[in-house]
């Protein structure tokens, strides 16, 4: 990944515009002549946003619409081949970046990945054993309920409420961590985010399982 126009990932004014030879101002569109520059591949840089975990999504959406308009293919029909190429790259980054950044979980995963806390690198040892025990037991209980009679229904609903409450408290915890990271830019906080996001995945599965079960129950008997 290289961003020649933004070596630090910020709006550094060093790059020269290919079109006019002046400094492009580190902007996507040259500050001098307005021609499209090679887009930054980093989503935050691309959208001109600070690397924060709590994002103003309305602002993001505004930026998305504005850039979509400015990158519309019709505007590049008569432009140079390189600008047309850049516009295609920029459009792809725009769409991917918007999809990722507007979702708090994907956004956090993105920052974690960039900071080297990639999910693919880790093994189960990063998951606290008590959590595994608990998730396993909850799954067992759910399975038993599933095999049980109608009376189990109430318990399944109870289980759902319990899992939803767990998920909610995890989300609150994440929110707090996100803010702490934004204030401090402390990598230690990201490590905590990593752990909590892992935990959330287990709980999400439980929620999904229990909802699947309730949906199945809701169907008329065949």
């Amino acid at each position, binding site marked *: 990944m290289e961003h020649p126009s933004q070596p630090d990932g910020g709006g550094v004014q060093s790059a020269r515009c290919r079109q006019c030879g002046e400094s492009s101002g580190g902007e996507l569109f040259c500050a001098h002549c307005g021609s499209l520059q090679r887009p930054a591949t980093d989503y935050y840089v691309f959208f001109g946003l600070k690397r924060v975990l709590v994002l103003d999504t309305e602002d993001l959406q505004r930026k998305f619409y504005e850039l979509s308009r400015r990158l519309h293919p019709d505007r590049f029909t008569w432009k140079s081949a390189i600008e047309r190429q850049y516009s295609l790259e920029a459009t792809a980054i725009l769409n991917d970046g918007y999809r990722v950044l507007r979702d708090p979980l994907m956004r956090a995963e993105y920052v974690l990945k960039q900071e080297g806390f990639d*999910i*693919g690198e*880790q*093994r*189960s040892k*990063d*998951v606290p*054993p008590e*959590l*595994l*025990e608990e*998730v*396993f037991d909850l*799954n*067992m209980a759910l399975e038993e309920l599933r095999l049980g009679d109608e009376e189990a229904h109430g318990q399944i609903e109870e289980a759902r409420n319990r899992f939803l409450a767990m998920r909610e408290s995890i989300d609150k915890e994440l929110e707090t961590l996100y803010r702490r990271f934004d204030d401090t830019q402390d990598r230690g906080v990201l490590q905590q985010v990593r752990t909590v996001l*892992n935990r959330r*995945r*287990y*709980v*999400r*599965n439980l929620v999904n*399982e229990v909802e699947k079960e309730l949906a199945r129950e809701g169907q008329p008997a065949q």
Partner: protein
Amino acid sequence: MAYSNKVLDHYNNPRNVGALDKHDPQVGTGMVGAPECGDVMKLQVKVNPATGIIEDAKFKTFGCGSAIASSSLATEMLKGKTVDEALEIKNTVIVSELALPPVKIHCSVLAEDAIKAAIADYKKKNSVGNHAAAQVAQ
């Protein structure tokens, strides 16, 4: 995604599903999870203390078809092996045996980790007075 026939076979007829008494000193229990997807797997071995041979193995997996198949296959492979031979089982064997695609490799890693964890638990329980197991106990 299309599962291979071997995966489907283990998925539809999982071998050795169940539990062994985790308080039994002959039993080692491994509980692992894949943070990528939130799946969990429990795998247990029952070791003959005189011979160090795994006489029984059971598993229970809450997860994808590949994870279920991987752990089912793992329990089959474990039976009759010594604990040290069991530690030699690599996830790559499971991958090729079940023809798992690249995105499902972590499911086989989960099974390998579960074997390691179960053996480690057994060794921990039997760290004194057991020849084969004691030598390599961590």
